[in-house]
């Protein structure tokens, strides 16, 4: 008997859904075990009936609910609450669902500022009032993670989450387990680069030049990116971006970790800890440009990123 699944994206980009497809050939083995009773990306089930004449949003009953994206408007909030009522286990898929994600950087601004910019202050836009219509849901006061609205049973962070973890978490549920989580390790714990616990010191370098490395050699011959003087979020970021066996993906591209899997454990303070990590290799963390957004790039929900009070004019 196939297990019924509801899947939908909220304030999302579709990357998590593509990552599900990136399970690859194994997908053909998993798919027959699942019955997607709602999945906007692939399945034609409609909220208001197949003839569009329903009056209330209808989410089918299911064992598993999978939700990607954070919560950005009233309709997403309503849909999420409906899904929660209809499913036994709810999975928050991806860093937007788990922490707010990149779009939660909008929490650094008042909602009115964003609307002012988008609809009245863009070079090609003919200025107009904010859209207002029963079919255009108003924004919630902030961009939220899913667990700010409803209870979440399993969180699979990542931008996107690696297909290994998606498959593993779903398989765990199919086997009757009720809990699953990524091991609490840092990206550095899975990163093969050379570390000597020191750097050249001074200010943190902006990413205006490439890392130093010999392309013919593996990562195990490259010096740690923080120790080369750049910001790499590896020390405070949960490992897992390359799945069960790979090396961290951004490092594979010879680029710094940007923190997409979020904090290593609940209650961690990645910004404070990252500043400590930079200090520990002799860098001046206060020199880092745009520090707040850089260090909280994916985790602006849960009140992490907020509107700062206006600075007094100098």
């Amino acid at each position, binding site marked *: 008997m196939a297990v019924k699944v509801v899947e939908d*994206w909220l*304030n*999302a*980009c*579709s*990357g*998590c859904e*593509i*990552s599900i*497809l*990136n399970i*690859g*050939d194994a997908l*053909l083995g998993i798919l027959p075990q699942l019955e*997607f009773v709602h999945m906007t*990306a*692939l*399945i*034609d*089930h*409609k*909220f*208001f009936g*197949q003839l*569009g*004449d*329903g009056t209330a949003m209808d989410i089918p009953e299911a064992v598993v609910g999978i939700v990607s994206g954070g919560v950005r*408007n009233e309709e997403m909030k309503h849909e999420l609450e409906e899904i929660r009522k209809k499913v036994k286990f709810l999975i928050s898929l991806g860093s937007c669902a788990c922490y707010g994600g990149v779009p939660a950087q*909008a929490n650094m*601004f008042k909602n009115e500022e*964003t609307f002012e*910019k*988008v*609809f009245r202050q*863009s*070079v*090609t*836009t*003919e200025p107009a009032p904010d*859209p207002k*219509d029963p079919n*255009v849901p108003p*924004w919630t006061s902030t961009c939220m993670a899913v667990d700010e609205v409803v209870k979440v049973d399993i969180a699979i962070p990542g*931008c*996107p989450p690696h297909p290994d973890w998606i498959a593993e978490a779903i398989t765990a549920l199919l086997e009757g387990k009720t809990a699953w989580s990524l091991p609490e390790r840092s990206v550095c714990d899975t990163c093969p680069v050379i570390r000597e616990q020191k750097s050249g010191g001074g200010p943190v370098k*902006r*990413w*205006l*030049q*490439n*890392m130093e490395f010999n*392309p*013919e050699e593996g990562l195990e011959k490259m010096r740690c990116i923080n120790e080369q003087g750049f910001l790499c979020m590896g020390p405070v970021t949960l490992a897992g971006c390359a799945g069960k066996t790979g090396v961290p993906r*951004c490092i*594979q*591209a010879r*680029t710094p970790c940007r923190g997409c899997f979020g904090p290593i454990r609940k209650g961690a303070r990645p910004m404070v800890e990252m500043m400590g990590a930079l200090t520990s290799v002799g860098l001046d963390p206060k020199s880092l*440009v*745009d520090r707040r957004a*850089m260090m909280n790039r994916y985790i602006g929900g849960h009140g992490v990123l907020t509107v700062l009070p206006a600075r007094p004019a100098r």
Partner: protein
Amino acid sequence: MGKVINIQPVTRIEGHAKVVITLDDAGNVADTKFHVQTLRGFEKFCEGRPVEEMPRTVCHICGICPWAHHLASAKAADACYGVTPPPAAVKLRRLMQNIAYVSDKILHFYFLAAPDFVIGPDADYSVRNVVGIIQAAPEIAKQVVHMRHLGAQILEHFAGRAIHPTFAVPGGVSKPMTEADRQYTLPLAKELLEFSKFSLKFAKDNVFPKYIDAIKSIGVIKVGYLGTVTEDGALDFYDGKLRLMKPDGAYDDFAYEQYVDYIGEWVEPWSYQKFPYAKKWGKLSLDLDNPVGVYRTNCLARINVADKMATPLAQKELEEFRAAFGRPAHYTLLYHYARLIELLQCAEQTVELLNDPEITSTDIRVPITPRAARGVGCVEAPRGTLIHDYECDANGLITKLNLIVGTTHNTAAINMSVNQAAKLCIKDGKYDQGALNKVEMAIRAYDP
């Protein structure tokens, strides 16, 4: 007033949209609207961020076409910092883009669009999907799943990430391609090319002839087109000049920075998505018989504005297509045909680039220094011309940014096609789920 039909969510597309069809008392279509219900606000929250961080931030706009945003952003950043990446860096960017687009086009044709054609537009919704295809044609499905994933594997092997990449940086790319990387990739690229040839043949033999009546009727509108061409008029995804074509085929060519002279964006109170239009053609009108200012982007638009394809096999296919449908071709469902011709060009270019000796050059990035400037970077995203326009201060922090993304250009046209299809499929109060699906087919052609 009569009945209101809510098609929500519009499915097998990316994002949140609903269609509302209002019928009059006689049960005929009085009004239709395609509502886009979400807004994320990148235009605001990118303010204050360093220019060099933009390519790996704005890629999150779209998880299906992150490489398009990544590269348009890298080009805008190149322009802000006033640098030209070395030739090998440009070739590597193009290589990654082509591979990503091969995956994207396979995804759209087989996973999103094909259920309407292989299972059938009127089939029950519970089987009219990719799972239905797996049951109906397991051998093809196996290939499709494998080939779509293969593109992602190639990208990950070399550039670390397939989704939300970090590889392109202002002034170039983050790493060179080694000979070993090239040797690993080339045979896989050839597999993708073979599959691309197969896909086009499969569609020409089994899909398009069978649905020619649908092609000639569903969602048909006659409007203009926007796309990118090289100096000699070939279709190009990475770089060139913009070409804006009127419905009769006459066109203007212009440089990226001039886009503000040609394109305006109208706001309607009932959608978060704006309505870009060709402002030199007059005040925007979505009137089906006499539209003004409406143009389309994405594959059919590119195929129409280009004088030719950039690769030999794709060029042959374009000639056959033009012999059948003319230039510009206006039938909306021909987007699917155009998409497969583009798939072939992307696969051919992937192999060409991998055979280029310069692809393994280690000269891949020029030095950059922040400065106050404006930079406009464009690429052709799978869904249309993608415009990233940045301004930054002397420290290289973004002060202003304007984005017009592929599907947004199609807002007006999608609304028109929905209206046309609804009027075609709903008459005297008679319609069923198949009829409503045909309205959605008019949307899906645009791959929004």
